[in-house]
Structures are given as C-alpha cells and as structure tokens.
C-alpha cells in the first residue's frame, strides 16, 4: 500500500513546522498524491467537501428538472418515465451521496480531532478507505444513472423494484451497498476516536455538543446501515433469481421489505439531522457568547434522539395494512421523539436570551435553521397521527415536511457549519455581506418553494406524479419560482468562498473568540499534526463568562 511511504514526509513536515509558523496542512505538500492518498483527517475532509459539493450540484439539477416539469399541469417538459427517473435520482443522490456524508464526513472529519485534542482519528487508513468506498459507490450509482437510471423512487419499494421495474435497480443497489460501508466505517472511526483519543482533562461533559451529536450519529450509522445493506441485497436476489422474498405473487411479503427498509431509513433521517443540531449548538453558543443552556440535557437529548430513532420506523407504513395495534404503539413512540427535539429548540432559545448576540453569517443560517426545523418537526406530528396520516400519506404534505427537516434543517445546519469553520479550514475570511445575503436568499427561496407544498398536499396533490389537475397550478408556480431563488442562494457561496480562498483576508486563529479547543489551541489553518503540544482541558466547553474580558470582536 503506497500510503505508507507518505509517512516519513509528513513527519519531516511536522519537524519543520516547529520553526516555520506558516507551514500548515494545506501547503506542506502540494503533490497530487499527497492529497489523494492523504491519511490526514483534514485533507480527507476536504476531499469529501469537493466530492459532495459536486453531488449536491447534480442532485440540485435533477430537482430543477422535477420543479420545471411541475410548472404546468400537463406533462410537457419531460416524459413521465424521465420524470420518474429524475425524482428517483434526485432522492438517491441527495440522501445517500450528499446529506448522509455531508456534516459527518466533511466537518466531522475536519473538526472532531481538533475539538478533542487528537493528532488524527483513531484509524487514519480506514478513514481514507471510507472516502474511496464513497467514491466507488458514487461512480457505480452514476453509472446506473448513465445507463438509463432507476425509476423506483429512492425507497425501492417491492415488488415494483424487484419484479416489474425495467431500470437499473441492481446496479444502483450495489452502489448504495458500497457507499453504506463507507458510512459504517466513518461512524466506527468516529466512535473509537471519541472514546479513545480525547486529550487530557477532556471528560465526557466537557465535550462540545457537536461531538455529542456526531457520536450519536455514528451510533445510528453503525446500527442501521447494515440492515439496509442486507435488505437491498435480498431485493437484488429476488430480482435476479426470480424467487419470492418480497413479491406477494411468489409467496413473499412486501410489507416486510418496508419494515426492513425503514428500520434503517428512518434512523437515517437522524443521521442527517443530528449533526446539524450539533453545529447549531456550537454556532448559537459562540455568537450569543453564553454557556449553552442545559448543556447536559442537550447532550442526552442527542443520544436519546438516536435511540428513539430506532423504535418509530413503522410510522412510514400506517397505510400498508399493518396491524392497527402496532400502528398505535408506533404512533405513540413517534410522538415521543418530539420531546428531545423540543428540548433542543427551547435550549437554543434560552441560550440566546440575554446573550450578546452578533449577526455573523453562521448565526443567520442558524436563525433560518431554527424556524425551518421547528416547522418541519411540528408538521411531522401531523403525519405521526394515525387519522391525519391516512389523509396526508404520499401527498405533497409529506414532501414539504421532510424537505423542511432535510433542507431547512440538515442543509441549513451544514451551511452554518461550513461558514462557521471556513476561516479555520482555509485561514481566510469571507465576505460577511455576501454570506448574510445568501443566507437570506436561501431562507426566502426555501419557504417559497416548500410552504405552498403543505397546501398542495392538504388539498390532495399526490407525490411522484408528473401531471396534476389545473387547480393546483398557482401553488406549483410559486414552488417552482421559489426553487429558482433557492438555487441562486446555493450557488452564491461557491463564488464568495472561491474569492475568499484565493484573495481573502487572512483570518485570526480564533476569529470569533470561541471557547472550544479547535479554535483556541490550533492555528488557522491548522498545522499538519494539529497541535504544537497536546492541549489540556480544564473547563467546560462554553466558558464565556470566564473569558468575558478576552472576547475579540471583528
């Protein structure tokens, strides 16, 4: 394995940078192989950043196809088959190749060792392997799309996927199988890192909440992902052998597929949202200059969301003919997820109360997150209620609900995180004006896109059809118009971040006066081995009252 030969180089760089301050992880070695075969968690994080940004653009273009088609009631922009393949590809790319790796693989990889005072993650080679599994999985999935795509919807419901669909379901399933292993190995790496690599004095209740959130996320990745892997495997077996596992015509049970599928895919929602909750905790504490209200209960609420996530899955299946008694239990359990989520929202509000709030770009994104996550969470309760779910199931209400959670929640959190750690990652400042503007445009565009969809769903417009009755057109035009504004908001950061990277003002080591050790004990950008000497932690993570005099504003 050629990565081994890199080790001496890195060590040399480490020895040099003691005398030369300006050596950092970005400039200590410029060769292509030093990036592509890097074992440095920071460089691997950046590899992920570049790759998932490309995936996000691809998924966004496919969303554009869907929205353009829905501009008019007739199916006149693309054929119905193309439409089916577009929303399927949009879902698969956005979920498996963007949202699930977004915060953990990019920000988690970059920040976890910095936040816990470690030189690297516990298994650097495994980390690089995860990236390449992600890449291989991505290539296989894109191959499936180029061959002709998949038309099953991202949920692969049987027996359509296993018997009737003539699209490239098996190829796609193999791609997702591979990318699933990437996700598992990343989660495993983070769990061991957080358990075994913390610096002296960093007890569990001194960990920043971002670490708690990623810990909970990793547990879900470890427990849930293998189940989807084996489920997709069974689907492919049924498809290739033509024997009944899930096909009722051949003695199988299609509801069992849904049970197995949602055993992973509901917790997967928490893989996407939990890291965002962690980012928002960091951002709100830092820009309110206050200790986070209810730190311990916030930490526990992350873990309990992860555990609760595993006992609610059948709320996706209330209309399948499952047992009404089991449905009642699942409905009740689903309501219980609202408790830790509510605790989080109230704790953030209480943190901001009487805080010394500054309106930096990450904070604007966090404000957007608070509003959208709350709407998304509360509309989830409509769907968890057995009676209303019968009416709303598989309508645009559901589409609006989960976009409020996944775009309004998870992506807003990701954007907040990228803006928050950008000066740490690159050592450069970006334009606050353009940053705030993009946050505002995304917030407006998002609401314009998805709020009308609640009405559409309530009025009865089903999801996954490329035609609809004329009376739904006005709301659909609003939605499509909003999506174009949303697209502008998402493209803007590419420009001002690009500008910042090449021409930006140099950032201080701790631009915001934050209190966690990723900011206080490393340079911006960090040196190849993170810390000059191992930090020792003596205080809780957000000790702003103690540091009041030392606060630096810019």
């Amino acid at each position: 394995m050629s990565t081994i030969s890199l080790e001496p180089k890195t060590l040399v760089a480490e020895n040099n940078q003691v005398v030369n301050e300006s050596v950092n992880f970005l400039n200590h070695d410029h060769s292509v192989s030093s990036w592509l075969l890097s074992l440095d968690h920071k460089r691997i994080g950046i590899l992920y950043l570049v790759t998932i940004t490309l995936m996000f653009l691809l998924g966004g273009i496919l969303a554009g196809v869907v929205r353009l088609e829905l501009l008019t009631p007739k199916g006149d922009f693309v054929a119905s088959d193309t439409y089916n393949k577009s929303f399927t590809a949009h879902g698969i790319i956005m979920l498996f190749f963007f949202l699930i790796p977004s915060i953990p693989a990019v920000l988690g990889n970059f920040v976890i060792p910095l936040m816990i005072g470690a030189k690297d993650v516990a298994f650097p080679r495994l980390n690089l392997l995860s990236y390449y599994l992600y890449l291989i999985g991505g290539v296989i999935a894109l191959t499936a799309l180029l061959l002709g795509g998949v038309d099953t919807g991202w949920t692969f419901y049987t027996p359509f996927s296993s018997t009737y669909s003539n699209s490239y379901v098996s190829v796609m399933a193999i791609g997702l199988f591979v990318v699933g292993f990437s996700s598992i190995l990343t989660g495993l790496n983070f769990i061991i890192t957080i358990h075994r690599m913390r610096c002296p004095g960093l007890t569990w209740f001194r960990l920043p909440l971002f670490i708690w959130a990623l810990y909970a996320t990793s547990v879900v990745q470890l427990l849930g992902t293998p189940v989807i892997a084996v489920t997709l495997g069974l689907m492919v077996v049924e498809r290739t052998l033509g024997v009944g596992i899930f096909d009722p015509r051949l003695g199988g049970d299609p509801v069992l597929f849904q049970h197995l599928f949602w055993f992973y895919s509901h917790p997967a929602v928490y893989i996407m949202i939990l890291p965002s909750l962690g980012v928002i905790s960091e951002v709100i504490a830092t820009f309110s200059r206050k200790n986070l209200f209810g730190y311990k209960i916030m930490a526990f609420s992350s873990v309990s969301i992860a555990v609760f996530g595993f006992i609610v899955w059948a709320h996706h299946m209330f209309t399948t003919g499952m047992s009404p008694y089991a449905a009642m239990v699942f409905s009740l359990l689903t309501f219980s997820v609202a408790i830790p989520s509510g605790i989080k929202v109230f704790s953030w509000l209480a943190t901001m109360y009487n805080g010394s709030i500054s309106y930096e770009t990450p904070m604007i994104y966090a404000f957007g997150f608070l509003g959208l996550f709350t709407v998304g969470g509360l509309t989830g309760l409509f769907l968890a209620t057995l009676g209303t779910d019968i009416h709303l199931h598989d309508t645009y209400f559901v589409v609006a609900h989960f976009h409020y959670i996944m775009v309004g929640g998870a992506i807003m959190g990701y954007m907040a995180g990228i803006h928050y750690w950008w000066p740490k990652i690159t050592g450069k400042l970006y334009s606050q004006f353009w940053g705030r503007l993009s946050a505002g445009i995304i917030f407006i565009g998002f609401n314009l896109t998805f709020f009308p969809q609640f009405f559409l769903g309530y009025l009865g417009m089903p999801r996954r059809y490329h035609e609809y009755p004329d009376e739904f057109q006005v709301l659909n035009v609003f939605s499509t118009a909003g999506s174009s504004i949303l697209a502008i908001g998402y493209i803007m950061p590419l420009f001002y971040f690009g500008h910042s990277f090449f021409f930006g003002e140099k950032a201080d080591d701790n631009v915001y006066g934050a209190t966690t050790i990723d900011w206080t004990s490393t340079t911006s950008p960090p040196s190849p081995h993170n810390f000059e000497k191992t930090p020792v932690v003596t205080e809780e993570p957000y000790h702003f009252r103690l540091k009041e005099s030392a606060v630096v504003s810019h």
Partner: protein
Amino acid sequence: MSATNELVKDAGHAHHHKDLAHHFDTLEQQHDANLLGMWAFLLTEVLFFGGLFAAYTIYRYKYSAVFEEASNHLDIKLGALNTVILILSSLTMALAVRCSQTGNGLWTGNWLVLTMVFGFAFLGVKSMEWGHDYKVRLMPGKDFFWWQYAKAAKDMHTHGGGHELPDMKNVKSDTNPELGVKGRQESEQARLFYLLYFCMTSLHALHMIVGFGIITIITYYAYKGAYSPDYYSPVENIGLYWHFVDIVWIFLFPLLYLLGAHLVH
C-alpha cells in the same frame, strides 16, 4: 488490503516504540482503540445478519408448518458435524491468540494454520450439502421443486426407503395447475425457507472466506515474529471476528437444521 491494514499494522513508525502509530500516545491506547474498533465492527455485523434473522423470524412465524417440513430435508448429521468442526476452529483460534499474548510466534502461526484447516473442512462439508441440494432441486430458483419431492420423501420415510432420492428429471413443474392453490403456496413457502437457508449460510461462508484472507496475512506476520506481548491486537482482532462467525453458526444450526427434527419420529 486497506481494510486489513488497520489490523495488520506493520512496524513503519519510529516514535517511542516500533509498533506505536504516530497519532497514538501509548501502546495501551493503541491496543484499546484497535480492540474497541473490532467490537464496534462486530456490532455492525450483528445487525447485518440481523436483517436476515428478521426475515427468517417473520416468515417462520407466518409459514411455520411448511418451514418445519422443509427444514427436515436438511442433513442434521452434516450440520452437527460442521458445528463441531467450527467450534474446534474457534478453540484453535483462541489458542493462537493466547500464544500471541505470550509472544510465541511459531505456535501463533501453527494454531492459525490449523484454524484455517478446520475452516476449509467446514466449507467442504457445506459445499457437499449445497451440491446435494442442487441435485435434488432444492436450490431456490426457477428450477426449485418441492411438492412432489416432499411427498416422495414422506413416502420413503414411512416405507423405510433409506436415503435414496426420487428421480427428479421428469417431474412436473411447481407451477403446474394440478397442484392447486394450496400446493403452489406450500411450494413457495418451502422455497422461501431454502432461500433464507442459502442466503444465511452463504453470507456466513462469505465471512469465513474473508476471514481466510486476513488470517493468511496474519499467519505470515506471526511466523515473521511481528507480534509480542506489547503488540498483538491484529491476532486478537481476527480472533474476535472468527469467534463471531462461530456464534452466528451456533444460532443458524438449530434454527435451520433442527426446526423440524421432531417430525421425524
């Protein structure tokens, strides 16, 4: 190779100790992290097999009568023999780990080789069983045939025909309308049992084959004397993996082979 690289960490680092990777502070921290990593991986594996066990549980509940009947056509003797072989290989693996703890590279390697020998014996028996299933058309595919076979086998039991199997070449297909709805359903349910049987045993066998690859590498390093009381976590980790594979079989054996044993008498 990369996956095993975490396990087979070769001595390429030159900080305090030849076996200590640069990002760890102490050997104990490194040992703990490696060990915990393996346990966490096994947690994933439990859920990986868990998906199949869930499918088994549900269909067993729904189609219990046919499942018991179908289970009866697996060879309990060979299943029990394989259980013994696999537990033997677990014993030799435990002894290999113990020798690596005391720094005995030669016997670490020897016990590992013996573990692989037992492993191959297990797969040999397994493939004999699969070959037999293929011959009598119990392989779950389009060619699967159950209804007539079950009847013939039942007749043989009652008439004491021994283990000779009926000639399957000219029998009708399971989709034959003569069978009626009930016959077709039973055939499908039996096929489901055999499908789960093949999925579970072949996933199990796949884990053993992956295990062979890693054990081979570790055996090589063990004979080279790479492991010492300071650094033996690769041997311990492959041991954990192998014992896990053993545990899976410990559950598969009664669930697949012994399900309908009581019907024989």
